[in-house]
């Protein structure tokens, strides 16, 4: 008999416009000691399955059909009181974001002890002893003192360990982990996944691991369930599903995952995703306004060179200089980017890679060092007009597609703004025509112009950002994690788009990512950063095949190994 058995599960969300079926007739089983991966893109209903199991569906969602059995005992029709005894006690849950999963005003000990006492009726002393024991098991050093610390005193990875300890308080039989490592850095991710695997083995717990990350699936799970639009499209052993996918959706999903092991020219298009029409080929970009009249100075040598760039943030202001506390976010970073080259910067969060990008584009003024662009030292120019001349040539695409567009402006105005600011055209009608062409080029179509940003999905918004960045006819584009907020299939489209544009317009690019496979697919050369320092710069292929610096080796080792099916092409 399997531990958890989900049969014919259908979850509905009634709304004014009719009933939205989030999960449709899903059958899943989990065995003791097994990790079942549930994979799919946003909106596929994979989290809803997990929430339905512990009956914490967001209102007004409801289980419309199907049964859920835990060790043969039916749990989907329990009333709230009886269900409370199942939640936490027999089924533990781990959420995505460790930064918000803990009550910030209570010590981790208080939260652990509360949960332990709730389920196990221990007295204060025993509960505390168990809490310390749990913290030890999840690998928190010095648990005797750490237990009295508040969540903000732990790092993200450590907090996720606390969250896991909380989920394990009363030895649950099943653990549902909903994107447990998505918010974490690769090295921390590897540790947490290792921990989850170990716990499953040692305690014989059955785990449902919900994720969108194929790498995580490949590394951790025994079996995989692939979900697409609320339906279970494929279920099988991890090995079989990844190497030999049967369903078309699984095939295209897997082909969209950037491969860490090999560079391919373009991502195969995911035909299963709507709004995936490729950029219009009937527009010849090079002879268009965008490609023409690029009145730039000819540059000999590198287009951009950064010399000993340094950035110091003051973290604590004080009256006397010596009492100030500061953080050196970027320390003496130097590199060159040749014309037409795609240069990658890779590193974990806090490594200073975004700060470098912001100094290059002038959002931050560096504390020291020089940014040389097209032969001019940008940090020395104080004349705004002269500076704008160079600023126009470099544009930036930001990470978060939701907050980087002004929600009160129409797409047309958003894209036209830089054109007007830099006085690229004299007439409004000409600007409008250019905006329409730009929207065609990034694959949105001219009809997008009259809409507002909120009418678009994340991937479409990122296309708007790219259109805006191209509007000044730049020759240098900075992309700061342009796809890390997006699903893999959308990511593949955006990366394809960037590749096409780079080739057709001969753009030079600085591409920042924490995702090594993406870097491998996109970049010609890569710099590895840690703690504000640039540790290694190498040709991409050289770095991936024979990394020199220890940290680069370490990063590559931690990268979830996902090797898709043998490529047909």
């Amino acid at each position: 008999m399997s531990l958890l058995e989900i049969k014919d599960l259908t979850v509905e969300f009634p709304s004014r416009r009719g009933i939205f079926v989030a999960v449709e007739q899903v059958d899943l089983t989990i065995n003791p000691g097994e990790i079942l991966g549930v994979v799919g893109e946003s909106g596929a209903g994979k989290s809803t399955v997990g929430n339905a199991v512990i009956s914490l569906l967001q209102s007004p969602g409801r289980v419309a059909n199907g049964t859920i059995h835990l060790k043969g005992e039916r749990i989907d029709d329990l009333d709230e009181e009886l269900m409370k005894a199942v939640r936490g006690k027999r089924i533990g849950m781990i959420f995505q974001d460790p930064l918000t999963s803990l009550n910030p005003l209570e010590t981790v000990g208080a939260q652990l002890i509360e949960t332990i006492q709730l389920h196990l009726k221990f007295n204060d002393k025993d509960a505390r002893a168990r809490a310390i024991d749990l913290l030890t098991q999840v690998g928190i050093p010095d648990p005797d003192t750490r237990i009295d610390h508040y969540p903000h005193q732990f790092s993200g990875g450590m907090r996720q360990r606390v969250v896991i300890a909380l989920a394990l308080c009363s030895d649950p039989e099943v653990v549902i982990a909903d994107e447990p490592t998505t918010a974490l850095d690769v090295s921390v991710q590897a540790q947490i996944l290792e921990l989850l695997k170990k716990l499953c083995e040692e305690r014989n717990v059955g785990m449902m691991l919900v994720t969108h990350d194929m790498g995580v699936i490949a590394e951790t799970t025994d079996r995989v369930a692939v979900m697409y639009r609320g339906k279970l499209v494929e279920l099988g052993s991890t090995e079989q599903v990844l190497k030999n996918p049967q369903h078309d959706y699984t095939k295209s999903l897997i082909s969209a995952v950037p491969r860490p092991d090999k560079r391919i020219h373009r991502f195969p298009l995911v035909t299963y995703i709507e709004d995936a029409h490729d950029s219009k080929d009937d527009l010849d970009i090079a002879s268009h306004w965008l490609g023409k009249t690029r009145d730039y100075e000819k540059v000999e040598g590198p287009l951009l060179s950064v010399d000993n760039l340094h950035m110091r943030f003051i973290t604590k202001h004080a009256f006397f200089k010596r009492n100030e506390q500061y953080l050196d976010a970027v320390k003496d970073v130097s590199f060159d980017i040749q014309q037409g080259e795609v240069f990658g910067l890779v590193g974990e969060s806090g490594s200073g890679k975004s700060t470098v990008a912001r100094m290059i584009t002038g959002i931050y003024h560096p504390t020291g060092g020089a940014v040389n662009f097209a032969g001019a030292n940008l940090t020395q120019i104080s004349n705004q007009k002269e500076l704008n001349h160079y600023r126009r040539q470099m544009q930036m695409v930001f990470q978060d597609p939701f907050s980087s567009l002004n929600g009160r402006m129409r797409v047309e105005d958003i894209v036209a703004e830089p054109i007007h600011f830099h006085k690229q055209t004299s007439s409004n009608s000409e600007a409008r025509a250019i905006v329409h062409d730009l929207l065609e080029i990034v694959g949105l179509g001219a009809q997008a112009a009259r809409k507002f940003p909120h009418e678009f999905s994340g991937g479409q918004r990122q296309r708007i950002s790219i259109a805006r960045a191209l509007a000044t006819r730049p020759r240098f584009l900075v992309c700061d994690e342009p796809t890390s907020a997006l699903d893999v299939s959308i990511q593949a489209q955006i990366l394809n788009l960037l590749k096409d544009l780079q080739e057709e317009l001969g753009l030079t690019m600085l591409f920042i990512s924490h995702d090594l496979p993406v870097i491998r697919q996109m970049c010609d050369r890569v710099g590895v950063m840690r703690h504000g320092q640039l540790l290694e710069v190498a040709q991409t292929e050289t770095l991936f095949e024979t990394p020199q610096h220890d940290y680069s080796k370490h990063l590559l080792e931690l990268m979830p190994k996902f090797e898709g099916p043998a490529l047909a092409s």
Partner: protein
Amino acid sequence: MLGFIFKRLLQSILVMLAVAFITFGLFRFVGDPVNNMVGQDTTLEEREELREQLGLNDPFVVQFARFTANAMRGEFGQSYSLRIPVSELLRERLPATLELSIISAILALVLGMPMGIYAAIRRDSWLTKLFLTSSLVGVSLPTFLIGILLILIFGVMLRWLPTFGRGEVVYLGWWSTGLLTVSGLKALILPSITLAIFQMTLIMRLVRAEMLEVLRTDFIKFGRARGLGNRALHFRHALKNTLIPVITITGLQLGSIIAFSLITESVFQWPGMGLMFIQAIGNADIPVMAAYLVLIAFIFVAINLIVDILYVRVDPRLRVSGGKK
């Protein structure tokens, strides 16, 4: 923590000095104090002598220093109109205002918080709708109108409660209190309700909004997934997180209740500082106005200091400066 309090104290002193400066300006620039004190037929020599006596011929800085030193001891000179020392007047009026404001602040908190919590937890119950609708009335009706309506209903028509004054008071040292006599308590009911209604609706709406916000957070969801019951989630985890903005607003509101109880005090002829202030304005009684300004500023500064310290008590994230372990 001590360093933090010390820093705040220093800032408070700066604020108080600024207020003292402005108040001092009142004496210097609003009318001539000598003219206010002497009769029509005083000769110029006598006036000059009085000036010398009062130190009005001293340099500006010396005068300001003297004023500040006196103010710190609670000395603001004589009231022009009542001919008694301002400090005595304050001593007489302060207890009335403080009692009224503190009782109504407590009333507002004790009623407003549970109502807000209830409205957040049971979002769709008919009682919540009633609270929300009636709170609109509370926010939109001006205080004086509520006061007059209450007087009309309970004082004039039903004749249950007195409509003005403090009733009998008992003296505990120099502090006069109406809390120990029946008539004093009765007299307190209408004005304190009048003063509390606006604060109560404000607190209720604030608590509700904050609580709804907190109930949507991940740690509440995670708590639910751990099997925690509603009571633990609502009152232990959610309420504490709700408190931070509530403390701010309540602190500021308490300050303004004390400072601006003048409308209520005049409607109910409550012998407090507000009423005194209004009369002082009418009589151009500068020492009284000055004393009132300094005192109110002091109360605001003190409350803000307490609020800041409470923040640090409630929110551990503020406790360690620098934050990192």
